[in-house]
């Protein structure tokens, strides 16, 4: 997989990550988002946040299983895009649904558990995005930084709960189940690696490995 190391690889992935945003922006102006564009934008940005969460959590398993160490170079960018779509999701809700009325928004978040859960997830995700650059890692120390960034698993749980609650009134869990299954497999893989006998031998033979295992 030499392509992953090509100088153009990062800009290409960056552009790919922006495609959903470009598509939605174009749709909003060209009026191709259906009868209720506000609802479409709120839902689509939420969907893309979950998708990027799945993608970023798939980096480490793929890197190990396929033996593509170069994949790790893309993890930070994918994580920041996950935050970007999450922030857009909040902005769309705040603007199109709530007219940017801050007291109303605060009351709505406090009153409705499914919004509160989504909001907490985004607050956490914002912390991770804000500490994603090299200087932050140095300032915090690798160990503490890693501990903080384990919160991505909490973000995944909150995101699924948010989506589940949102759909629960309609008993419509098919899509929720797909995301939950993907995230479950990605988290399960990590647990299995951590607690399997092979992991014990790995740890014993390389006790001081400083690199993030993700």
């Amino acid at each position: 997989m030499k392509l992953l190391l090509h100088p153009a690889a990062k800009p290409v992935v960056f552009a790919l990550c922006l495609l959903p945003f470009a598509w939605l922006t174009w749709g909003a102006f060209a009026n191709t988002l259906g009868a209720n564009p506000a609802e479409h934008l709120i839902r689509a940005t939420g969907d893309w946040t979950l998708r990027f969460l799945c993608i970023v959590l798939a980096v480490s398993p793929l890197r190990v299983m396929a033996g593509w160490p170069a994949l790790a170079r893309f993890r930070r960018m994918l994580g920041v895009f996950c935050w970007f779509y999450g922030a857009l999701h909040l902005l769309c809700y705040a603007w199109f649904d709530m007219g940017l009325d801050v007291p109303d928004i605060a009351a709505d978040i406090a009153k409705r558990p499914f919004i509160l859960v989504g909001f907490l997830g985004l607050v956490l995700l914002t912390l991770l995005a804000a500490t994603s650059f090299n200087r932050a890692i140095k300032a915090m120390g690798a160990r503490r930084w890693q501990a903080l960034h384990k919160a991505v698993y909490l973000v995944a749980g909150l995101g699924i709960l948010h989506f589940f609650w949102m759909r629960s009134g309609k008993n419509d869990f098919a899509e929720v189940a797909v995301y939950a299954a993907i995230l479950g497999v990605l988290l399960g893989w990590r647990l299995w690696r951590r607690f399997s006998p092979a992991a014990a031998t790995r740890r014993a033979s390389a006790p001081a490995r400083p690199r993030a295992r993700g």
Partner: protein
Amino acid sequence: LPGARSAVAGAVTMEKLTSYEDASSYNNFYEFGTDKADPARNAHTLKTDPWSVEIEGLVKKPGKYALEDLLKLSAQEERIYRMRCVEGWSMVIPWVGYSLSALIQKVEPQPGAKYVEFLTLADPKTMPFVGSRVLSWPYAEGLRMDEAMHPLTLLSFGMYGEVLPKQNGAPVRLVVPWKYGFKNAKSIVKIRFVDKEPATAWNKAAANEYGFYSNVNPNVDHPRWSQATERRIGEDGLFAKKRKTLLFNGYEAQVGQLYAGMDLKKNY
């Protein structure tokens, strides 16, 4: 399907009509899928001819009524109603039909009939999502007898001067303009007169979210969102403030007395 202008009080709002395109492509009709674009895509399989509606229960003249006879039972009128969906959006739609009371009078309910139950088609061969666990099938709705007899309660066969598109509940549906849209049973095959409040599809699915009455009410929130405002499809732009929702969807003058003395927070 032509309809004469209705003389019923409140039956013709002067507001701007929602485009036919939007009204026939943004639908909740779960038998054809849960996405609002699904019904327009999938409903072409629905067979609306032949069609009949079975009238049964506490009624003196039960039986199967053919669609042709129902169409001629009373003069077709055009009614321009606001429609407010429980999800927080609204439309203005010119329906064609006549007051349900005309049919009810014709079949002569017995004195013990206190409620009217509406059952809709649930044919897995033509409706791909019948059988999904989202709702129990067939889709059931109900009204109290005085609500069913109210002149604004419409038995509708058409919209925008044409017969109903399949995704909008062809060939015959209910329109109760002061209630949330899901009360408007589509593709009706059975009307049953009963003495007890009938179970309704959404109430069975989530009783804390969808009550039997489901009158449009800005003061009673849905557990997951506010009902104080709404977005008028095709008219309220992306950045426009949403418009205020009116009690009984603006039909309070006509229907308010039906609920005199009732606690609308309890009977949501």
